[in-house]
């Protein structure tokens, strides 16, 4: 679906369904340097199981017009801009990595509009190493390599992909090769800079973490696990890219979490 947000073209994948104001809405927010298609299987499932799905391409990513937004707060505001553009009052949010910080920030800023959030592959603080940031700032291939290798569990290059015939490293590298210069740096810097006390987060929070995540290891989510409404699901064998590495476990956890309330509130 093509949208206009802040006078710029934006894209949201809807699982080939027209928006239905009677259905609850689930928004998917991708991580640094990625796009909506990382949520392919999971967003498609919800689109065919009673929800409006908006799997977003953030500005400067995928099909959405740039430039990329420089802070997590700005991205959270932009997500609300998407909801406004669609006339959606409240929604659940699924965020991955940087997108998980966006989900937390959105829930903190506008708790009345966020029903519950699922944070996949998340850490707080989400500090990025100086070497990674510097390589990304230079648009150096080394940054793409770090994103690719640290973005998956160590066994991924030698193990089997649950998605038959696909090579996860190759997919990550191809995706990064399509990024405009500076976008990955922008995103990593936004993660690195992000700070919050999450005081406004009142809704249920799912922390969905890969046990073999080297980018955001589960121990780095300790502060988030202290949120009163948070619960954690650890996924065996998965690294940071849970949607690709453990698609079924990820979907099962999301279905269980978002089924705890039968429906959300319809559009205003």
């Amino acid at each position, binding site marked *: 679906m093509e949208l206009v947000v802040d006078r710029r073209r934006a894209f949201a*994948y809807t699982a*080939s369904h027209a928006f239905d104001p009677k259905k609850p809405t689930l928004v998917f927010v991708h991580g640094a340097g990625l*796009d909506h*298609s990382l949520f*392919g*299987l*999971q967003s*498609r*499932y919800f689109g*065919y199981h009673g929800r409006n799905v908006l799997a977003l391409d953030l500005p400067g990513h*995928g*099909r959405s017009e740039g430039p990329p937004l420089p802070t997590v707060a700005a991205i959270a505001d932009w997500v609300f801009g998407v909801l406004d553009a669609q006339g959606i009052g409240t929604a659940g949010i699924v965020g991955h990595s940087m997108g998980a910080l966006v989900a937390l920030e959105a829930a903190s800023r506008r708790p009345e509009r966020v029903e519950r959030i699922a944070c996949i592959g998340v850490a707080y603080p989400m500090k990025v*190493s100086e*070497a990674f940031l510097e*390589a990304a700032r230079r648009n150096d291939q*080394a940054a793409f*390599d*770090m994103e690719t*290798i*640290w973005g998956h569990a160590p*066994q991924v*290059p*030698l*193990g*089997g*992909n*649950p*998605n*038959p*015939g*696909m*090579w996860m*490293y*190759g*997919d990550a*590298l*191809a*995706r990064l*090769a*399509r990024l405009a210069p500076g976008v990955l740096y922008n995103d990593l810097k936004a993660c690195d800079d992000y700070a919050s006390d999450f005081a406004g987060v009142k809704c249920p929070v799912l922390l969905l973490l890969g046990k073999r995540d080297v980018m955001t290891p589960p121990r780095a989510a300790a502060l988030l696990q202290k949120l009163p409404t948070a619960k954690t699901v650890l996924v065996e064998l998965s690294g940071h890219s849970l949607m690709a590495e453990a*698609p*079924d476990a990820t*979907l099962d956890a999301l279905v269980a979490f978002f089924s705890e309330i039968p429906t959300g509130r319809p559009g205003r």
Partner: protein
Amino acid sequence: MAGPKYPRFETLALHAGQSPDPATGSRAVPIYQTTSYVFRDTEHAASLFNMERAGHVYSRISNPTVAVLEERIAALEGGVGAIATASGQAALHLAVATLMGAGDHVVASGSLYGGSHNLLGYTLKRFGIETTFVNPRELDAWKKAIRPNTRLLFGETLGNPGLDVLDIPSVAAIAHAAKLPLLVDATFTTPYLMNHFGLGADLLYHSATKFLGGHGVAIGGVLVDSGRFDWEASGKFATLTAPYEGFHGMDFEEESGTRAFLLRARREGLRDFGACMAPMTAFQILQGVETLHVRMPRHVENTRAVVGFLSNHPQVSKVIYPELESHPDHALVKRLLPKGAGAVFSFEIKGGRPAGRKFIESLRVFSHLANVGDAKSLVIHPATTTHYRMSDADLAKSGITAGTVRLSIGLEASADLIEDLDRALQAASRAAAKA
């Protein structure tokens, strides 16, 4: 700070795509000799059919053993993924059929394997897809042949029969300027000898029957996508960027971005054309892939020894191998194929068809058959076999003479190969003298 490291080629050749079998601990790739897979429940079945969950439904679409081969070749080539097919020809057909339909057009190198030439020049024409063949060395000819309805540029990394080295960076630049992808047949170069995607190709395929298997026991193909071509930005590929009625209105590019081509090829091409690979074949080809990095240097080493011998033989008028200074692509091969120009080449024997016939019949180590890329050395004399019905003038148009002999150099002792060739050349010389 040292950055993280990728596994090297040799390690990927042995491991990529497979972890020890979770059910049995089997270290070798298990052969999942099954047509179909039990669903956990009706909900699971529906979600697999609708691509909401990953997994296998029916072995024409995907199979766990075949998937190991696909992922491994994708890893070795640096692609987003791969689809294994019933043959190399099936892989070429799958690529073309995924990208275009009646009314579309291909620009192809004229230096192609005969089967590919037949498919493009005759068979696909019957289905409304036309091909313009160009001299692969004439870059302007590629450019001039592109029409508004062109959807693909295609060539072999090492052409047939003159071993023309495809200038992938230049041809890819021409393709990309026209918002078109470049597909290469990488059979002769394998991922070991050439970095096809790094040079600019967008799609590639192998006849896995050849060097990937290496043992000559299984027919198969593999189609690989780099994931780098932006189908949406091109605006020329409705099969990938417009809703497809045959799969719930799916827009493959919107659905999966970098994986759009392979998704359509699998969900439509394998589903409807059905030219899938059998699990036993995938297992057999995997046995070859695991030693590709060991075999290819030896293939090249033996080839160089044989080329050196033939280049100085009085019964040989010409040797056609890109590493020789006499070959027009000598400079290009140094740039694109630093590890070697493969193990298939041609030479011309003096004395015409009678000498050629006698030469073939006198060989003891080389096997006379229609294949290449085997661990065993192979030979064929086009004028008395594949091109038997052609006049000498027609042969010349194909870059072949009555004395052209094609060799595929295997892994035997090079001294034995040279002795075998020497004995047969002497016999051919005597036959030519009598004729």
